[in-house]
């Protein structure tokens, strides 16, 4: 869900790259983008993020070749994964100060769900770090993010190769369910350990008269995927039809 949410809302709101009227989803968009300084910053940001996720991708491949198996590859990319995924919080700031035309709420939701999975689940429950489900969502996220950030970079520079646009609006069909499965399986795997350790939970009685059950909270999160996943998925399919057919028309007129 975090995987697709990242692509979905950004696409839906016309991308996080301040595309100055490249006619992505509609031909009649006003030519309004960020100023030159903001554009330069955003290009740098998106290039750095693309590079970061490439590092993660390469790290995964190298670790796989070195170990000879795809188990427990998490440890080889743990640090860059945490760094670059957490760095995505900046994107919320970009929306807030207006240099990116996406909604702050939607972007926060996406980034927070990713950050939640990285820190509050995978990092916090050490026992799940060896699960294969972690690899599942890491791969999904890595491919998605490399494409997404390069998409923004090219959009900002007004030179968007069709291949990147196609990739962004097509690969999600597989990557999104893949990511969601990885995320759900990981949370599910974490449950018994959370229950056992009473992780992040507080029970009565206490002097603030408050209680929180992280186990129940995680289950609620898992349940929330049920309404949210289909909505985002079908939104993206709809976006795909719009974007890719529009490009076809453009090509006809050339």
């Amino acid at each position, binding site marked *: 869900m975090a995987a697709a949410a990242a692509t979905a809302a950004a696409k839906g709101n016309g991308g996080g790259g301040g595309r100055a009227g490249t006619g992505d989803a509609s031909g009649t968009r006003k030519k309004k983008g960020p100023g030159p300084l903001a554009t330069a910053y955003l290009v740098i940001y998106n290039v750095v993020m693309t590079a970061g996720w490439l590092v993660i991708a390469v790290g995964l491949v190298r670790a796989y070749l070195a170990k000879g198996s795809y188990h427990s590859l998490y440890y080889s990319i743990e640090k860059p994964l945490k760094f670059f995924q957490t760095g995505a919080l900046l994107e919320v700031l970009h929306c807030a100060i207006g240099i990116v035309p996406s909604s702050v709420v939607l972007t926060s939701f996406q980034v927070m769900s990713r950050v939640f999975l990285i820190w509050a689940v995978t990092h916090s429950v050490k026992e799940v770090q060896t699960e294969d489900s972690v690899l599942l969502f890491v791969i999904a996220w890595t491919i998605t993010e490399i494409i997404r950030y390069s998409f923004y970079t090219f959009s900002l520079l007004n030179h968007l190769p069709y291949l990147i646009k196609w990739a962004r609006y097509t690969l999600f069909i597989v990557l999104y369910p893949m990511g969601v499965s990885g995320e759900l399986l990981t949370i599910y795997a974490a449950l018994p350990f959370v229950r056992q350790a009473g992780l992040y939970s507080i029970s*009565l*009685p*206490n*002097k*603030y*008269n*408050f*209680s929180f059950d992280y186990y129940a909270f995680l289950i609620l999160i898992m349940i929330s995927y049920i309404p949210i996943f289909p909505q985002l998925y079908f939104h993206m399919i709809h976006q795909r039809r719009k974007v890719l057919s529009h490009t076809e028309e453009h090509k006809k007129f050339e």
Partner: protein
Amino acid sequence: YAGPLFIYLLFYFRVPFIYGHKYDFTSSRHTVVHLACICHSFHYVKRLLETLFVHRFSHGTMPLRNIFKNCTYYWGFAAWMAYYINHPLYTPPTYGAQQVKLALAIFVICQLGNFSIHMALRDLRPAGSKTRKIPYPTKNPFTWLFLLVSCPNYTYEVGSWIGFAIMTQCLPVALFSLVGFTQMTIWAKGKHRSYLKEFRDYPPLRMPIIPFVL
């Protein structure tokens, strides 16, 4: 408002299925829990009566979607707070009777203040009309807050809930107060801005909701 009133009482009387069966219909042995029930109920009864007899609305009705959102918010929070305050394992405030008395005083004063402001605002507008005037302090000392604040009704409301939070020493109540404060600040700022826009001679010392600060 009848919702939160009713829901809280369900927890207060420990209706079955909320707490363990051995607690069904038992009563708390802490005075503060009974006080809290009285305060919470009083607050919502007051609100109900004010809606029926005091307020003069500029708009006719509230949109349906808002009602759904409002109810979820009020009912949800009422249940959440009531659950902890009326819980068999409830822990009374750290500083005991002193803390409860002080907090109760704050609550009562702010409720009186809030009511005074509602009455003052009502008297600004003749029955059946939609006129808008700058509110000013009256002989009632509670309305003197108008000197410093555009929306003292919100100020008193936040004060009431802070009092309630201190009295019950319950984190969910504090969170409810915080959320309410955030929403009321947004409303107060909006009201303040429209006052400034509409009236050239609007008193400059006034802040939207917190004197000198916000």
